[in-house]
């Protein structure tokens, strides 16, 4: 076949936007992604500052007298309390205390527990793997269960599967994670004896045992998020599948499966991914629930203990770590979204 070049159309048929500053579109696009990432970080910094300040002020709001608590009733002479307050830096104005705490936190030093003198960072690091395990598994489960259900419901919309998913989603959104967790324990542990009802085994001890111990908690806290994702993905996928460009891809003779994955799912995934990011704090609450139901030695248990004993540095440290967690997840989700839709959004304007 010969390819002859047609006389080039002059004038009228030029690109709407002239090639910008000579940069190739692809390079221009990645530059925009980078600048967006920078913008995202610029937005995050004040958020981190506000969240951590709220966090820190909570400790200061407390009318407890940490020095007196630490010293005990007998030794708490005014002079001793003043000396300890000075040593703890509690005699500075709140904003100075906050700044000192923040700069220390930035170096990984979250202070020490008032009671056990164990560094807060150390206790948190010890318990983080528990929550990290169930949270990561829960995200995977939510993506697989919610994504799968939403996708099939959208493709077979109006069918029995679609209706089933609808009902299941409504039910799941009224059942809190701790109730779901208990139901799972009753079903799989107490009645069927398939999985352990509680406890935690690290992956270094036994991968199989580790999975057996985290699967039910993860399932419990992923359910509500799965429902959200299924609902959202179904909605946006139904909308995408009605778009002309799906017909366009079909008349090109592309295999339907490829159209579903490369064209429809890719364009419909954004809102569902946003949900995953938005729901992450919800999942952390669910993780605390799962820890309580399944007696897991995680951050939630540490928080409850420290709250009971009013161990303020531990509470502050925990809140800081959790807030950073949420912010990092949001950043990851936004970066993914920007990457996914790098081509679509006002590039070149």
């Amino acid at each position: 076949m010969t390819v002859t070049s047609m006389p080039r159309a002059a004038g009228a048929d030029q690109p709407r936007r002239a090639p910008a500053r000579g940069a190739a579109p692809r390079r221009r696009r990645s530059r925009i992604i980078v600048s967006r990432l920078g913008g995202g970080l610029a937005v995050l910094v004040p958020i981190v500052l506000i969240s951590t300040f709220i966090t820190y002020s909570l400790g200061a709001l407390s009318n407890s007298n940490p020095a007196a608590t630490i010293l005990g009733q007998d030794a708490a002479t005014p002079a001793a309390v003043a000396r300890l307050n000075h040593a703890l830096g509690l005699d500075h104005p709140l904003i100075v205390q906050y700044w000192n705490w923040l700069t220390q936190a930035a170096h990984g030093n979250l202070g020490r527990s008032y009671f056990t003198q164990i560094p807060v960072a150390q206790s948190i690091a010890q318990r983080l793997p528990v929550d990290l395990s169930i949270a990561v598994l829960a995200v995977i489960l939510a993506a697989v269960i919610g994504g799968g259900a939403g996708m099939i419901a959208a493709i077979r919309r109006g069918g029995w599967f679609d209706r089933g998913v609808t009902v299941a989603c409504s039910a799941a959104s009224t059942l809190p994670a701790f109730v779901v967790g208990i139901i799972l324990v009753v079903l799989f542990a107490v009645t069927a004896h398939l999985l352990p009802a509680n406890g935690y085994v690290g992956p270094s001890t036994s991968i199989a045992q580790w999975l057996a111990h985290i699967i039910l908690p993860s399932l419990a806290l992923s359910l509500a998020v799965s429902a959200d994702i299924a609902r959202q993905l179904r909605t946006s996928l139904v909308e995408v599948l009605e778009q002309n460009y799906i017909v366009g891809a079909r008349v090109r003779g592309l295999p339907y499966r490829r159209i579903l994955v490369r064209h429809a799912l890719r364009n419909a995934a954004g809102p569902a991914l946003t949900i995953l990011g938005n729901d992450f704090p919800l999942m952390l609450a669910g993780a605390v629930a799962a820890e309580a139901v399944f007696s897991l030695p995680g951050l939630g248990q540490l928080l409850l203990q420290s709250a009971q004993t009013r161990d303020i540095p531990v509470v502050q440290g925990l809140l800081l770590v959790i807030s950073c967690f949420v912010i990092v997840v949001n950043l990851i989700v936004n970066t993914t979204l920007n990457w996914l839709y790098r081509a679509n959004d006002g590039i070149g304007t």
Partner: protein
Amino acid sequence: MKRLIGPQSALRLPSARIAIVVLLGIAVLTAFGSTLAPQNPLTINANALFQGPGAHHLLGTDYLGRDVLSRLMAGTRLSVLTALEAVGIGLVLGTGPGIATVFLGRWFDFAANRVTDALMTLPYVFFAVAVTAALGNGLVQAMVPVGILLAPFFFRVTRAATLEHARAQYVEAAELMGASKLHVVRVHVLRKVLPTIAVTTASMAAAALLAVSFLTFLGIGVQPPAPTWGGVLSSDLAYLAQAPWAPFIPGALIAVTVGALNALADAFRDRRGAGTLAAQPDPIIRTHSTLEPADDDRQSQVA
């Protein structure tokens, strides 16, 4: 924005009617729960431990032989009132700035949105627990941060709805005719925004009730013998071997109440595609960052 339908047509939906009946029942329990309870919720009966539902104990007894029905009825008031406390705080802190931000200029809007973003990153359980650490172990204290963390949801919904109406041409016309901003807000905008706020309030009440149940389940804010919904669930959890069916009773009560609130909120929202999942008018490709001011009205979940 989701389109809202009038209260009359919404109430014709069977789901809305059932929800109203359930919520009226809960309201009665809130007011007279302890009085109506068939037995003393604190009476221990060593001869009737872990009894299943029966004629004498309609919902059975717990590990101390206490009547579960009476405990749940007596526990309703604290759960519902503290949930309403949180919703009230969220409503006041969220809707006021939500309406104001549209009229107070870009800087206020920017700042309010940043604070909202920051608050939305904070998980409520951790904050509620932290507040009890700081201010003492009480449910009333614990629900203050929950209320504060509900405020961003009210804020976003109200701001989006206000923005939509404040830029409508009839508002512009009213302003051109010399009406003051305050007058425009009061007469034109507020009336349009109220239904949206009502829907959000119902969803947020559901979220707050979940939060209360969860906090009482964790043992935050209550002393052990006092009955609460979450507390009943928590004590059942310890004796699953003896009574595996027990957690389903308080669990169902929580789920039904939350479900009724959600159903009511849904009924007032015009939902396309009845019978299948609600089609929410999300743009196909939403590219805004979740940390940027999002004029969305996601309100079903609160963390």
